């Protein structure tokens, strides 16, 4: 197990370097960020040259990348063009996005698994068909349409919620945005759980448990659910990274000042430091989440051993 972890960690190094280099190159393709800084007039050449020098934009890309990575390892993520330390932006943005992600995941677990179990046990019944159809509709409508519709109906027409999230972003205001963010994953958790439950229901150990005369509740919770949740848990685990990085649309609709907002702003202003910094952290989260999920496999399913 220990050796496996070490090997996986070593494998993460090239992936981490590759991904950050890739995003660095992509941001670089976007062109000269200085031109947009001076409003609707040309920057005076003196200031523009000085700014380029200061942000290291006059150096070759590989050198910019090396300098940047060197700084990152000492905890310095650079400064955005508006003079704000990227670490400072992170310290305000990440707590908000982490809260939003947690809300989304809790919703996935509570609603998704419940619906999945109910439909899995009642395969073919009207409940099953209805929920199945519902999940497909959720999957096929783009998130931003779902978000805008919910905002209009719940926030403006009926006044049940605040149409936007206040700067403090308390958890209760994040429930609807979290639902929008989680919607597609939620639909998939439902379908995954349903399939898994339906498959395992026909398995020998469940039949044995039922034959032993165990109460239905106990069979479902102790035997069926526990074994059916393995793929679901791993799906949710790997979804963390996707949710955090994919919140650009949701955060924009509900005016949440989290990671997605900072990334969006950073891209519009071609703010290399912000974009690369946030993506670097997201890549790390993604890699670590994947490792943890793989290790969870072994914990959940004793048949798996890592050597």
């Amino acid at each position, binding site marked *: 197990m220990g050796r496996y972890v070490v090997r996986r960690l070593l494998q993460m190094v090239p992936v981490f370097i590759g991904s950050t280099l890739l995003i660095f190159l992509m941001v670089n393709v976007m062109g000269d960020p200085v031109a947009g800084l001076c409003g*609707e007039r040309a920057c*005076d050449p*003196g200031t523009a040259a000085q700014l380029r020098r200061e942000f290291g934009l006059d150096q070759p890309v590989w050198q910019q990348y090396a300098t940047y990575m060197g700084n990152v390892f000492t905890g310095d993520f650079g400064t955005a063009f508006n003079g704000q330390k990227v670490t400072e932006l992170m310290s*305000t943005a990440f707590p908000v996005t982490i809260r939003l992600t947690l809300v989304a995941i809790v919703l996935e677990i509570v609603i998704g698994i419940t619906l999945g179990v109910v439909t899995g046990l009642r395969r073919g019944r009207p409940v099953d068909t209805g929920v199945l159809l519902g999940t497909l509709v959720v999957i096929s409508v783009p998130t931003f349409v779902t978000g805008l519709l919910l*905002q209009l109906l719940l926030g*403006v027409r009926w006044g049940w919620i605040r149409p936007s999230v206040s700067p403090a972003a308390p958890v209760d205001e994040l429930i609807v945005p979290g639902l929008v963010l989680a919607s597609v994953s939620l639909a998939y958790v439902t379908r995954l759980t349903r399939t898994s439950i339906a498959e395992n229901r026909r398995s020998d150990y469940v039949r044995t448990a039922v034959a032993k005369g165990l109460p239905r509740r106990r069979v479902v919770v102790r035997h069926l659910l526990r074994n059916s949740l393995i793929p679901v848990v791993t799906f949710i685990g790997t979804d963390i990274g996707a949710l955090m990085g994919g919140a650009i649309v949701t955060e924009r609709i*509900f005016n949440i*000042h989290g990671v997605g907002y900072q990334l969006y702003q950073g891209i519009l*202003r071609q703010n290399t430091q912000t974009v690369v910094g946030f993506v670097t952290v997201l890549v790390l989260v993604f890699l670590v989440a994947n490792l943890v999920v793989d290790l969870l496999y072994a914990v959940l399913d004793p048949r798996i051993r890592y050597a």
Partner: protein
Amino acid sequence: MRGTALARWAAGAGGLALVATGCGGGTGGSVGTAVLSSSWGDPQNPLEPANTNEVQGGKVLDMIFRGLKRYNPRTAQAENWVARSVETTDSQNFTVRLKDWRFSNGEKVTARSFVDAWNYGASLRNNQKNAYFFGYIDGYDKVHPGSGTQSADTLSGLRVVDDHTFTVRLNQKFSGFPDTLGYAAFAPLPRAFFTHHAAWLDKPVGDGPYTIESYTKGSQMTLRKWDAYPGPDKARNGGVTLRVYTDNNTAYTDLMSGNLDLVDDIPAAQLKNVRSDLGNRYINTPAGIIQTIAFPHYDPGWNKPGSQKVRTGLSMAIDRKQITRTIFRGTRTPATDWTSPVLGLAGGYKPGLCGSACDYRPAEARKLIKEGGGIPGGQVRITYNADTGSHRQWVDAVCNSINNALGNGRACVGNPVGTYADYRNQIGQHKMTGPFRSGWQMDYPLIQDFLQPLYYTDASSNDGKWSNKDFDRLIDRANAETDRPRAMADFQKAEEVVRDDMAAIPLWYQNGSGGYSERLSDVALDPFSVPVYYAIKVS
């Protein structure tokens, strides 16, 4: 060319212009303690006065700073504020005398507060984006050379006489100089700005009616009324909370549901229902902003004999009335010249100067374009930045209008550029191959400001590189003219040169539009389309 340095382009609805404005002749009045919330955008640059060139940062500076002059919120005329007087005998040497004034940290505002601030703003090493504002002051070329390193740290044209007096020597005669002093770039700075710079940036301290209580970057800023403010325009509310919105639609939605008190940019898509939503809590005030379509005169396709006929034809193919009525619902007015109605007739505004070229005449449009050799490349692509404002809506509408007039569904298409930075890049490198959107927000109410920066040969905001000797000559003559009506006549003659060549197509004059909650009263927008915060009363 000198005048050009004072101006800059505005980004239309989501304006990107430094705005230093305010309200004159405040009389105190009833003073409240309640706080209002207002929509905001994340400032693009650090909140240093000489480094803020867009409206969102400008909003804050307008609340926490007062300079020598201040623009009247109704007339936009420059009025003495911290200055007791700004005097000159030769339009080149000025003597500035100050009133007793203080920064909110108790420090006195002295001549040195100004001179140090201006030297800081002009110095190349400080990367101040508004440094060009100091370009008239003697010694600027040493402090801020176009290339290489600076050979001086201070402007030789500035001299402190005593605590309340300093003199300014310009590198040329410029009678309009005092009118420029209302800009935030000319604000005084306290010692703390220089001694504890990082701390100052976290929580800027100035000499205006508000002080900053807290600032969560990228999210919100709370400003409190400064009780001991020495000026006549004391805040009549307890403070303002500025809240960052990514999308002005969300801000409007929040106003509707009672989570926000004031919105100073109503999205075009909401204008249809704004009357029924807000009733008389909707404000629509003329502002010194004109929107135009500029041409790449450096592109051979757009600069050959007969091209002006094509440009005029395109102008005639745009149904301005219908677009301003349908898309903008009266928040913009069809343009009939290249200036703005806020100038007033005395200031050089001349309605109808454009003549039939700005009317919708599809038949004549087709004829002119045909005579001029047709549209270069067979298709007009109007470039705009898609990330802010309602540009997409009106560009699409303009194109549809042109297509309908020419009877060709593909004669005109919008060409969105993803980011503003890239849009400016393409313009700056003269890579445009077709027309592009442009907007101009005035710096001060002078016709000169609407013409010289945009159309004078090689002017820095002359993005289309249009050049005409007659125009340049008329502008030079007008600037030298001391008699105001005669100067106006020359400026208008120059404007006619622009018209005859259709250097840029004037579209419409833009208003400031805003809305507010039932808690507020006395809400107004100034001619720069920024709310006059100090005067707002909160119940």
